[in-house]
């Protein structure tokens, strides 16, 4: 499937989720909708695949619209391999395009605790190192999380815990693509 088409599919599913939840809650539907863009940087992250370790801190770029969040989560994991008398690093880079429902856990939708649950489309590259060609994989997976933020004028700061999970196939190798991330978030109301 073409990448653009897949992204569109992800967004469509997210919209459907949003519609589902907002339409079943008339009180929420009547609330004033808000629009935020934000950036999150991981304080800690752990790749889902048990033998992989983090290669750098994960980042997440997102926009919130009402109770919906759309975002791109980037993460790179690595494994130092010692095989066949060679030692080298193998990198797994994953970009997750996701759409999620973001219900407030407290009374206020704009600040306080919130949860995230949605679907992600995971696009991964497995860099095998040296002269071996990089392998790619695309897979659907789950995005979930909880977070909290404090509003300082139009800017909010907060903490968010994410759990992303998906499984990728790279030729004959199966790898879990997700990760557990604790992120520092910052977002701006527009």
């Amino acid at each position: 499937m073409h990448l653009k088409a897949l992204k569109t599919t992800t967004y469509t599913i997210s919209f459907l989720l949003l519609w589902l939840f907002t339409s079943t809650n008339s009180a929420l539907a009547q609330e004033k909708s808000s629009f935020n863009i934000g950036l999150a940087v991981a304080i800690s992250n752990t790749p889902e695949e048990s033998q992989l370790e983090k290669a750098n801190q994960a980042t997440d770029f997102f926009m919130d619209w009402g109770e919906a969040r759309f975002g791109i989560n980037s993460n790179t994991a690595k494994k130092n391999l010692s095989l066949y008398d060679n030692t080298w690093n193998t990198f797994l880079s994953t970009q997750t395009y996701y759409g999620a429902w973001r219900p407030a856990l407290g009374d206020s939708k704009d600040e306080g605790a919130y949860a995230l649950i949605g679907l992600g489309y995971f696009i991964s590259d497995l860099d095998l190192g040296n002269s071996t060609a990089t392998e790619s994989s695309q897979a659907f997976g789950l995005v979930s999380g909880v977070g909290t933020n404090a509003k300082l004028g139009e800017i909010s700061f907060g903490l968010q815990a994410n759990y992303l999970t998906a499984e990728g196939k790279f030729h004959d190798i199966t790898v879990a693509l997700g990760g557990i991330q604790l992120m520092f978030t910052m977002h701006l109301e527009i």
Partner: protein
Amino acid sequence: MKKRSLKILSLAFALLAAVSCKKDNNFKNGMAYSDLLSEYAKQITYNIDQDTKLAGVFTLRLTGNQAFNAYYWGWEVPDFFMESSNQSISTVITLSDPLPTTSVSYSYFPVYSDGTVPYNTATTGTVFPKEITARSTSTVSTAGVESADDDTYVVTYSSTTGLIADATDTRYDSNGDLSTLRVYTFEVDPRDSSRYYTSHYQLFGSDGTTLTGATAQTVTLTETDDLKTEVVTLANYDTDSALADYTDQSFGTANSSTILKTVETTETYYTATSSVAKNTVLVTTEKYSSASQVAWKQIEKTIYADAYFGKISSYSIVQYNVSTSDTETLTSQNSSTYSGGLVLQTNNYTVSGGSASLSTTYTYAYDDYGRLLTMTTANSSSKTTKISTYTRDATTGNVTSYRPVTVSTSTGTESCASGNYDMTYETVTVSSVEYKKITQIVYGCSSGSVSSTATSKSINFYNARMQLVSNLEYTYTNGGYVLSSQVDYTYASATGAMTKQQDYTVSSGVATASTYTVYAYDSNNFLISTIVYTAADAVSASYTLTSYTYN
């Protein structure tokens, strides 16, 4: 906090808790066995394959992409020598003749210097000699008079494809009358490991037209992404139509029946099925007493640890007698388990009344370089009965001693068993030529321990190609070694072909040169004459001179 929020909060945490255990797809193993990383795997290749047309004497070279252990393969196994670096090991092979029915095939898996075995399947395939169109022979008398023989061997090739078509071997008796006529017909082999195979063999009597017997062979190949199946069928006929046994190419008997047909099916499983694991090679041999009645059956199952079919993980062989009502009765069973491609344990079974019970177990232990250190034999009750120990030189890894002991199953007491020996390895220079000298001293047992005095000694000298140049045997008599036999060999420096064997008569430890044999080769290194000379350099018997005409 609202009730709904609490619900969602607990839902989210439950979700996180449920999935927060990490996934383990055994990433490193996945990488190790992945086709993607095959270029990092330890690979071996041969210098010849099925497209090569072999000379009479050639060097079979096996090259690894990483180092083999020089000592392990150069000294320990004198058949091989290190060549051009420690990544290649070689051996000189001699083919008996360039007839189209002659072929060789090698598949050999040396252990790398770190004790690991190669990851790939390496084999030469079935390799044939240089093509001839004819062979003729003559007899040379001791006086050197040559007289041409009537015998002929003629090979024809397809005029359109140039491929081998048939061969006719005609022989005459001493009166000049036809004695036998053999006709071989060849087909293109569907397997990519071979160029052709003999599809028909016909043996005619002295009239040249009456068929004494015939053998037909078919080879079929079917291959999918999941399974490769090769079937080789051999059948004997009295004429070309009725199955019958005949002496020349008899399949013998099995399960008290005369065998008229054999079918060997080799199945290579690339993916698992409900009954067979992935990367399994299953070789089923069936011997038929009639066109459709199986009398005997053997199944060899080799399971490989990876998709390269290089490392064996297990091997088993079972044999059955098959009744006329197709009931299979187990007659033999053995199996082996492997680790890292090296055999760890072999189980031998006693089969009685169709059921097997474990009889003997052999367990093997290796050093870090994959070299055998001990072999332990255990009985059916898993009690150790024998331990064979190899001592190795710490630097070179060469075996320096071998000590087998029998173990009492009741008391556990170890006592000396026969076959004890010590080995020494030296490089010696004779007339500025270096030779490898390997000495083996054999010891017997005395009062349950290894004797302090030897029983015999043998010294072998090898040239740089690790070809045996001299073999000296000694007995230990009256406190000293006394020479009992000696044979020397000479090789052509360019090709490695053996050119001379010098025999000695040994008397009271003194060797005296006696007869010698001289081997002569044609330009393609095929043997054309074997001449035996007396100690006085006279030809001792008439000999055959062979001449080949090459295609």
